[in-house]
């Protein structure tokens, strides 16, 4: 896919203060799997996959996920958080080749 690292972040359409909301995010990423040669030996190279996902809300890191190669291509993550104040939720994906991809959504009450 051409747009590697494109992050999409979705929040419920209406949120009230104090709600526990589900945050859904999707990233375009190849999540390379281990390859083997004809003899079945693992090919030794630096595989490109997302190994860290960081969630920040109102400027503070609220959660960090360590992920592995077993996660699928173009992975989808969903988690919940308590919406205490209006402000940005940012999800940052880090991959093993140093790539850093970010998506942001605004929590607004109403």
């Amino acid at each position, binding site marked *: 896919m051409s*747009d590697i690292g494109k992050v999409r972040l*979705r929040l419920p359409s209406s949120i009230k203060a104090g709600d526990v909301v589900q945050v859904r995010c999707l990233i*375009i990423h190849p999540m390379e799997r281990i390859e083997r040669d004809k003899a079945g030996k693992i090919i030794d190279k630096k595989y490109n996959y997302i190994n860290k996902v960081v969630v920040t809300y109102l400027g503070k890191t609220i959660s960090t996920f360590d992920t592995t190669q077993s996660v699928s291509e173009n992975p989808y993550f969903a988690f919940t958080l308590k919406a205490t104040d209006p402000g940005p939720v940012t999800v940052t994906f880090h991959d093993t080749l140093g790539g850093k991809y970010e998506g942001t959504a605004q929590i607004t009450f109403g």
Partner: protein
Amino acid sequence: MTRPIRWLGLILLTAGCTVAANAPDYSSMPRWNTRAIPPARGDIRTEADGRRVAVRYPGWSTKDYAKFRTYAYDDWRPEPSVSRAAMPSGVVGDAKKGRALFLDRQRGPCTGCHLVPGDDVWPAGSVGPDLSTIGDRKLTDAYLYQQLWDPRAVFPLTVMPPWGVQGVFTPEELVHLVAYLQSLHGPAASEKDADRNPFTRSRPVGFGDNLDPTNNPAVLRAESAAALWQARGPKGKACAECHPGGVENVMRGVATRYPRYVPAFNRVMAIEDFLSVHAPDTTGQALAVESAENVTFTMLIKMASNGMPVAVDTSSPQARAALARGRASFVRRVGERNHACSDCHTPDRGANKFLGGRLLGDATGGMTRHFPTWRTSQNDAWDLRRRFQWCMTPLGANMLAADAIEYAELELYLTQFDNGKPMSVPGIRH
């Protein structure tokens, strides 16, 4: 009371035909060599032992229904004639056997349309009347037997298949079914679960926003086709070279006009049909109908028109002729079940009722503008043609090739009900 109403209906029907004055004309249909992938061609293979096997998609039934009428325009067989039959003597009806037959998923199942008592009846449908207490109506055995053998003898416009005439049940089995129906007496037991009863069952709520890629896997799939748009095919050309400016701009509004009559091929074509001839001519890519590439490409092109109203041509002479044939297909009775599309998908018949656990769609409300659609039950994106073919098999009719003219014109007939309504591709459905 029913008689005058029936006569009124007949008069209106006759008047309608006179006003429409465009009886379907099949005289100048072109031949079309299918460009679909092998499982989508409706082929029948003869095995070494002489057995005939239908070639269909992996996991689909391979039963050959050659005996029964299809949608093919050159299939001139009439629908089976209405038949009266007397109950065979010398068979003693067994209600228990009858109940097993009533529930048998390899036959009807009768429960697909009718509610009967029992927690193992799941899920019952509501297309036909609730039979929970039919025994109380004191109908004669002969009457019930005739209803099962061929209900058209009593109700000419019924949606119920003539089970005996078509050989789905043997006369002996029908006697057991009659015995079962006569054993159903009230009062009906109260329901433990409101969802068992299709008349009180909650309606499905859908699968959320179909254009949200975190919700509908088909969106990502379609976006991936953007790379294909830029890629050079075997002839050294890419779509983007003749259609520059980005697929979302250059294809904006195009899909709202399909299916349409394409003079170059002298037939009605949907995007899928057109791609299967246009791509080989230009880039050299095959894009065979029902290939994953074709369906994905179709989604990409249709997405460029999302939000725009459907605007298929219904006024040119070719479109009017195609619509007349499409309408005729919609009401044509086909297959072992002798069903028409209109039996399940018009509001005066099955639409908005449950067939088993599935709520039947209403064709007159427009069912096409979200195709190709993600099917959660199939884990795949399907276009309307594969959906048509999927419908054929339980009806007991051999499917046609996915790019058959018959299907294209039926698709046009269905799509004109969507005219003026916004496109929203890819959809997401069960």
